[in-house]
C-alpha cells in the first residue's frame, strides 16, 4: 500500500497530459468573436486607391470575400502579402483590404511595389472600422458571406496551412450556396 501511494502524482500527470494535448489544437483566441454571425458593422470609408470613392457596408454584399486587415507598419503583413497575391491571382479569391491606421502614400506605394491582391482597400486611417470589428492586431482576416455577414475571424498571418485547413473549406462552401 505504501508504495502504491507514491504513484498518485504520476497518475495525476497521466490524466492531465491528454487534456493538454487536446488543448494544443484548440485556439484560445478563437473566442467566437461577438461579430461572427452578425453583419459587418456599418461604415463609410474612402477607398485607399482613390479618395473620392466612398465605400459603404452595403457594398460588401453580393459576394463571398475575405476582409484582410493590413498596414505598412505591420511586419507580419509583409510576410503574409505574397500568399495573398497568390490566392488572388491563382485561385481567384476575392479579397478586400482594410488599410488600418496607416498613411495613404506609403500604403499606395506598398501596393504598387508588392502587387495588389485586393479588389480594393478601405482606407481606415483612424481605425474606426477596425475598432468596431474588434481588431486586436494586424494582420487579421474575416470571412464574410454574400449577405455581408461575418462567418469567421482569423487572427494572424494567413498561410498555406491556414488557407487549406480552415479558410478554404469555409470559403468554398459559402461560395457554393
Amino acid at each position: 500500500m505504501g508504495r502504491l501511494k507514491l504513484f498518485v502524482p504520476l497518475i495525476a500527470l497521466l490524466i492531465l497530459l491528454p487534456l493538454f494535448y487536446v488543448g494544443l489544437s484548440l485556439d484560445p483566441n478563437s473566442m467566437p468573436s461577438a461579430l461572427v454571425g452578425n453583419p459587418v458593422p456599418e461604415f463609410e470609408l474612402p477607398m485607399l486607391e482613390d479618395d473620392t470613392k466612398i465605400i459603404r457596408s452595403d457594398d460588401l454584399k453580393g459576394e463571398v470575400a475575405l476582409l484582410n486587415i493590413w498596414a505598412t507598419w505591420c511586419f507580419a503583413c509583409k510576410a503574409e502579402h505574397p500568399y495573398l497575391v497568390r490566392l488572388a491571382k491563382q485561385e481567384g479569391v476575392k479579397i478586400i483590404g482594410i488599410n488600418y491606421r496607416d498613411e495613404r502614400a506609403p500604403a499606395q506605394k506598398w501596393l504598387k511595389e508588392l502587387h495588389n491582391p485586393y479588389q480594393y482597400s478601405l482606407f481606415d486611417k483612424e481605425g474606426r472600422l477596425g475598432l468596431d470589428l474588434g481588431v486586436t492586431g494586424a494582420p487579421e482576416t474575416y470571412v464574410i458571406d454574400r449577405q455581408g455577414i461575418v462567418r469567421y475571424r482569423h487572427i494572424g498571418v494567413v498561410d498555406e496551412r491556414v488557407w487549406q485547413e480552415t479558410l478554404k473549406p469555409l470559403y468554398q462552401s459559402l461560395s457554393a450556396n
Partner: protein
Amino acid sequence: MVPELGHLVLILALLVSAALFVLPLLGAQLRSLPLMLSARSLASGQFVLIAVAFGCLSWAFIHDDFSVAYVANHSNSLMPVYYKVSAVWGGHEGSLLLWILMLSGWTFAITLFSKALPIDLQSRVLAVMGFIATGFLMFILFTSNPFDRILPLAALEGSDLNPLLQDPGLIFHPPLLYMGYVGFSVVFAFAIAALLTGKLDSAWARWSRPWATTAWAFLTIGLALGSWWAYYELGWGGWWFWDPVENAAFMPWLVGTALIHSLAVTEKRGLFKSWTILLAIFTFSLSLLGTFLVRSGVLTSVHAFANDPERGLFILVFLAVVVGGSLLLFAVRAPVVKSAPGFTLLSRETLLLANNALLVVSMLTVLFGTLFPLVADALKLGKYSVGAPYFNLTFLPFMVLICLLMGIAPSSRWKRTEVGPVRRTVMAPLTLSLVLALVVPWLLGDLTLGMALATFLGSWVTLTTLKDLWLKSANKNGRAKGLKQLSLSYYGMVIAHLGIALAVFGVCFTSHYSDEQKLRMDVGKPVEVAGYQFTLERLDEIRGPNYLADQATVTMKKEDRVLRVLQPQKRRYLAGGQIMTEVAIDPGFTRDVYIAMGDKIDADSWAMRVHYKAFVRWIWLAALMMAAGGFLAIIDKRYRKRAAAPQVGVSSMTQKGAV
C-alpha cells in the same frame, strides 16, 4: 556571418549537452572515473558555447542586422541601445535562449560549488542538467531558431520591440525570473540523482538547500519586478492580475516555499524525505508547465505570444518525458516510511508539515483556476475564463492559516513542544495584535472586518517573530552577545517572515484604502482627489527617440504647497503605431499618487485617471525582504563546511532556531 556563427555554436552546444547527459551517467554506472570526470569539463564547455551564441544574438541586435528575422521582428534602428540589448529576450526565441543560458550557467555553477560532493553523485546531477539542456536546445534549434535569416528579402527596418517591453523593468524582469525558474532545475537534478543513487540522507538535503533557497530568492525578486512593471507600465494601477502567465511563475514560488521549509526538516531531522523529493520534482515541473503554458499559447493572457501548436507539442512531449519519467522514478525508488514518525502532534515537524500542506493546496487551487479554461475547453464543456474573484476567494483563506502558523512555528521545538511555553510566548503578541487590529484600521479611517483581520495577521507575524528573536538572543553576557550568536540563516528567516507580514499589510491596505478617479482636466483648472489638488498646467507635444508623445504637466499640491510636478504621457510609437500610456507617479512610503492620461477631449483638456494607492510599495519592499532573507540564509557558514560533516544527527537543541 555572426548570426551563422551563433547558429553553429548553438548546434555544438547541443552536441556537448547530449554528451553531458550520456557520458557521466554511463560513467557512474560503469564506475569509470574518466567518464564521470568528463561532466565537469562538458558543463563548462556547454556554458561557454551558449554564452557565445547569446553574445552573437546580442551583436545582431546592437548592429541592427534586420536580415535576421528575430531581430527584424523585435528591434528597430531608432531604439536606444539598452533596449536593443533587452530586446534580445523580448520575444519567444530570444527568451528561450536566455532560459538556456541561465540553465547552462546554473550547471556551470554546480561544477564550481559542488567540488566536495561524491563524484558519482556530482556526475549524475550534471547529467540530469545535461538532459534538460539537450531538450531545450533541440527545442530552440528545431522550432524556434533565433538566427533564422530572411534572405534574400531582408527587411530594411525592424518592426520595433513591443512598446510595452521598452522599459527598464523589462530589462531585469525576465533574467531574474528565469534565474529563479531555472534555478529549481538544480534542486530537481539533485533529487533525481539522489533517487538514482538511492542515497537520500541529510547530506543530500544540506547540499540541496542553498540551491533551492537561491533559486527561490531570485524568483521572488523576479515576481516582484514583474508586478512592479505591470503596475506602472500597463497603466491601470493594478499590481497583480492572476493572469495565467503570472500564475505560471507564482506556482513554482508557492511550492518552492514549501520546498525550502521541507528541506529544513529533511536536513535537521532526516524526515519527510519522499515528500521533499516530490516537492523538488513538483517545483521544477511547474516551471516547465509554466514554460509550456506561456510558450504554446494554449491560454490567453496579457502576455500575448504567438500561438504555435508545433512548439507547444514539442514542450508537451518534453514535459511528459521529464515529469513523467521523474515521477515514475519517484514512485519506484522513493523510500516508503514504515517506522513511527518520532515526533508528536505539537512539534516543529508537524507545524512545518502543515505549512507544506497549506502551500501545496493553495498552489493546487491556483493550478486549478489556471487550467480550468483549458480543461473545460478540451472536454467540450464550453469556454470559460477564471478571474480574480475565484483566486482571491480560494487563495486568501490558506494565507490566513499560514500566517497563523508562522507565529508559532519558529518558537516551537523539534520532536515535542509543550503547550504551556508556547502559550506563554504568544500571549503578549496575541493580545497586542488584537488591539492593533482594532486601532490601526480605525486610524486609517475605515474599520472593517477584513481590515481588522489583515492588521491582526500582519501584527501577529511581526510581533511573534520579534518576540522569538528577543527570547533567542537572551544571553547572560548581554543582549549584543546573544544577537551575535544567532546564525545568519536564523536572521534570514526573521527578515523573510517580517517580509510576509509587510506583504499582508501592503496587499490588504492597498486593496481597501486606495482611491481612483476618472476625471476631466482643463488647463489651469484645479481638481481634487484624495485630499490633493491637481492642476493641469500645460500640454505639449514632444518627440522621443522612437515615438511622439502628448505630455501633460500637472502640479500636485496639498494645502497650497507644491509637492511634485507630474508629467504623464500618451505615446505613439513610430514603427508600429501603437499607443502607449506612460503614467507619472509620485512615490511614497505610505502611498503612491499615480496619473495616467486617458483620451483627448479638446485642445485644452484631457480625460485623466488619478489613482491614490495606499501602501502599495510595501508589497514590493516585502518581496525584497523575503529575497534578502533567502540570500542571508545561504551565506550562513554551515553550508561551507559541508565536506566536514557527512551526516548530521539530531542536533536541534544546540543550533538555536536554525531552520
